[in-house]
């Protein structure tokens, strides 16, 4: 999100603030038109891209979209389905038919119980925000080890970087497996030191992700683990 701001008028706007006249521009997310003017509806950075003006929000709730890879936690189990907390307004529903196992009616709890985490994909979101999840797909599974760390949804692009540069670097330095869920949850698995380092890296992203000097802060943090490894 925060990338791709090149050429834009870089300014912070608050809800209700006029961004400028409509004059042939299209209005993207985080803005509305009122009396021929573009008005910001969220606190964030103004972005102009391909004739569309939008606001990159500084903080934002997760709104599930079909196809999103998410990390969910089982909140409730019924005979034939699981309700999963996916960090959104509504719980996601994972029916028995979309689980990766052959589940007998009433046996759902034996495969995944309350509190278990799983990697799933959003199958469908209807107009009433009902979310259906699926675990049928490559790599979708129950997460039985590692740690799940929460980060702000709007900082995910920063964490990943251009072409996943930041994420790949984080994986290399920490020697951990890292999966970023679109719902602001990151799964990290590896050595204790690696997980601790990644946890701190994600905390830095959470606190400094919107700042200009984010990259240099991350580089300093990388040196910490390298030094430890050398000694």
């Amino acid at each position, binding site marked *: 999100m925060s990338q791709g701001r090149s050429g834009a008028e870089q300014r912070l706007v608050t809800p209700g603030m006029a961004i400028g006249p409509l004059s042939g521009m299209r209005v993207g997310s985080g803005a509305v038109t009122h009396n021929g003017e573009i008005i910001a509806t969220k606190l964030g950075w103004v972005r102009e891209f391909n004739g569309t003006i939008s606001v990159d929000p500084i903080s934002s709730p997760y709104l599930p979209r079909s196809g999103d890879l998410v990390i969910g936690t089982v909140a409730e189990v019924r005979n034939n389905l699981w309700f999963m907390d996916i960090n959104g*307004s509504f719980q996601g529903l994972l029916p028995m038919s979309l689980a990766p196992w052959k589940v007998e009616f009433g046996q759902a709890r034996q495969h995944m119980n309350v509190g278990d985490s799983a990697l799933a994909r959003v199958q469908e979101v209807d107009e009433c925000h009902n979310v259906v999840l699926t675990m049928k797909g490559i790599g979708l599974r129950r997460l039985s080890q590692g740690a799940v760390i929460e980060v702000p949804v709007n900082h995910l692009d920063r964490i990943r970087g251009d072409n996943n540069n930041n994420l790949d670097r984080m994986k290399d330095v920490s020697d951990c497996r890292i999966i970023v869920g679109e719902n602001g949850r990151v799964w990290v698995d590896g050595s204790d030191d690696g997980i601790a380092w990644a946890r701190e890296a994600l905390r830095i992203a959470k606190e400094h992700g919107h700042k200009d000097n984010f990259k240099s802060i991350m580089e300093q943090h990388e040196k910490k683990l390298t030094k430890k490894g050398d000694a």
Partner: protein
Amino acid sequence: MGGYGDVQLLRDDGLRLDGRKLDESRPVTIEAGILPAADGSAMVTHGLNVAVAAVYGPMEAHPRKIQRQDRAVIDVRYNMAPFSTSDRIRPGFNRRSREISKVTAEALESVVLVERFPRSKIRVEIEILAAEAGTRCAGITAASVALADAGIPMRDMIVGVASGKIEDTVVLDLDKAEDNYGQADLPAGILPNTGEIAFLQMDGDLSPEEFDLAMEYNFKAAKEIHEIMVDALKARYDGGDN
């Protein structure tokens, strides 16, 4: 409101008892993002008032009977802490806090883009830690900043301001003595960018001319407080890309 007649609220030099001019507001400070566990939060000090607001959500509305299929509901809970005034307040909901919660929720519903979150609930908690007249205004200002901090889309922010009448003179922002012994109070929720009014209450009597002057004061104060609100939100993200 009013009725005490001979209490002197204006000095002989035309200023008010605390030295303020007629159209002068009490000092206002605002800080955004003070509660790490909330999705958005803010603290407003307005004179001796201290209001803290926390926003949670949008989340699934419970119980289901309060859900609206086409929009979110805003659940506001305004509460004064027992230690907020010199006389201890009995904890819990009362008639006054119920009324203020209701008018605040209705005011916020007019600016939040509730149609974006069907069947959801946005929970707004307003806690008054110290009270000195004008707590509903401080509370609504705090709630507005907290909603912006939580990333909830809004058409505009609401600024809570109040004017009133003391000794037959219209003044801005009544303090405790002026509120207790004055003749009228006119709290308003103003949308500073569009100039619309999200809520308006009146306690006491004002002539049409006095009402116009009181609203003029309110709009003036709203502009000033709005600047402080914007600065508070920008300060929260100090060191950003601007």
